[in-house]
């Protein structure tokens, strides 16, 4: 393996450790929902391995629990996970254009909120091995955690769950705050996002968080793009 790939893999693994730990804890609770829906630990494991999405899987388990028609689970998964389409599009621009199909395929396999967050924070073009490193902790953390949740229920003390559940938000802050400090427009965009997200949460509480994320992203990033188009050399951030 090339030295630079090896280094990217190690860095991805390092940045993936808090992701894997956070996932393990969060997916425990997801496992409890899966158990109520009638899934066995193996079924929970494969669902989480191939989906790696909290809201999407949660919504899916509710559909399974209700024994609803198959088209419903397709639709609800599409709605709950649609934001990944935007993230995947952003990452397509972070790759060098000659990146082969199989790298695009396997990086796409695990575009989660957190892995997206750490990969966009990388300087310059994205090395797929960075994502593979992060996936080495994220995928087992999430899928084994789900299976354990089905087997064991909630054995972790609530104080530990509470503390670890902010790990993933901490990661998002580490990605957005430094560029917000450096660039006034990004700073204003982040501030507007916080404010509008809070307002939307209060005013349209019936929208799921996934749908709210998509609407707000389209609106706020759309307005920022029209008002403050980015100059040529700034787009590798």
């Amino acid at each position, binding site marked *: 393996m090339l030295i630079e790939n090896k280094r990217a893999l190690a860095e991805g693994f390092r940045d993936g450790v808090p992701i894997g730990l956070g996932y393990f804890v969060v997916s425990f609770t997801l496992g409890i929902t899966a158990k109520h829906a009638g899934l066995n630990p193996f079924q929970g494991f494969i669902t989480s391995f191939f989906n790696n999405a909290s809201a999407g*899987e949660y919504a899916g388990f509710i559909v399974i629990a209700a024994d609803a028609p198959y088209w419903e689970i397709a639709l609800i998964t599409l709605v709950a996970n649609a934001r990944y389409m935007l993230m995947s599009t*952003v990452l397509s621009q972070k790759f060098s254009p000659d990146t082969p199909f199989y790298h695009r395929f396997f990086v796409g396999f695990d*575009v989660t909120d957190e892995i997206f967050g750490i990969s966009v924070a990388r300087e310059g073009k994205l090395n797929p091995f960075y994502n593979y490193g992060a996936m080495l902790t994220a995928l087992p953390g999430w899928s084994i955690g789900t299976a354990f949740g089905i087997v064991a229920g909630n054995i972790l003390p609530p104080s530990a769950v509470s503390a670890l559940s902010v790990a993933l938000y901490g990661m998002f802050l580490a990605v957005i705050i430094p560029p917000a400090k450096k660039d006034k427009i*990004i700073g204003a965009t982040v501030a507007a996002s916080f404010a509008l997200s809070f307002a939307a949460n209060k005013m349209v509480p019936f929208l799921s968080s996934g749908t709210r994320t998509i609407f707000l992203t389209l609106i706020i990033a759309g307005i920022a793009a029209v008002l403050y188009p980015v100059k040529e050399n700034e787009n590798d951030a």
Partner: protein
Amino acid sequence: MTHEIYIYILIMSVVTLAIRILPLTLIRGEIKNVTLKSFLYYVPYVTLAVMTFPAILDATQSQISGALALIAGMAAAFFGASLFKVSLTCCAVVFVAELFL
């Protein structure tokens, strides 16, 4: 239960993977349109900000510990702490705060 759980899982997985893999594999070149490019440039900041707040307040046992974690995490990130340190700071703040709340 009239539906097969494995078919549910298969449908969920196919939909999720298609959503994630299609843009990355189909958009192979650089997008040239300035507005679209700028939009994609702002997307990560908006998406991650929207997902963080106010959700962080409801992730913890008490909204106060969530708010403290938000402030501590923003401060740590502002002063240049690494991803791992910011994350750990947030967890530690919640753990300690909830001993008193």
